[in-house]
């Protein structure tokens, strides 16, 4: 069940339900992320040798989908902070 409650807060304070605009935002995120991840995964599928194809397992698919939306909604400063944290996330992935 969704309710309309503006951009902030994303969860309706009285009911605890997810706001309609936030739900739409998450739906767009889901579709964008799914499409970008699928595209990179297909590229990795068809490339040989397998060690080279494996590079695409670490493609910035989630980052591209998320940061494109973040630019649109929050601007460059917000994206810059996310990029800085992404470095740590990538190091954790490599380990």
């Amino acid at each position, binding site marked *: 069940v969704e309710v309309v409650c503006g951009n902030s807060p994303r969860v309706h304070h009285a009911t605890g339900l997810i706001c309609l605009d936030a739900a739409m935002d998450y739906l767009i995120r889901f579709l964008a992320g*799914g499409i970008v991840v699928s595209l990179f995964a297909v590229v990795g599928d068809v490339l040989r040798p397998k060690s080279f194809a494996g590079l695409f397992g670490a493609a910035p698919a989630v980052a591209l989908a998320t940061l494109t939306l973040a630019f649109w909604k929050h601007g460059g400063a917000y994206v810059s902070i996310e990029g800085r944290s992404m470095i740590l996330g990538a190091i954790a992935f490599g380990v």
Partner: protein
Amino acid sequence: MVIRVKLAALQQGHWYEYLVRFALGGFATVVAGVVADIWGPTAGGLFLAFPAIFCASATLIEKHERERKEKKGLKGKERGKNAAALDAAGAGLGSAGLAVCGAVMWLLAIDTALGSLALATAIWFAVSVLLWRVRRELRVYRT
């Protein structure tokens, strides 16, 4: 070794495997968004490097390679494991490229939106390929 494209590999996959990848990619992106909304961009950024593709691909590669060998009447279990290990090695190198990609976003995102995204992706690819090439050269040199 020459890098080549093998389109026949797409025929090995089932429709539901592509659906699972799509769902996993979408879910990971939503989680990154939810975390950023609740705890801010510093926490959300950590999830931008979530290995959505690798998680979905590694198991599929192992399965496809095993099935391919078993169709020929050979034991494919070991071969499947090796194929998944090669994929993981590549992903490990790609993660270094991903870190550089994050650094480019960190440094350039304030100045240019589309430019930083395009440059970060290009640099991820360049760094990953460079590391892969260096690794190959070192392996040849050792043997």
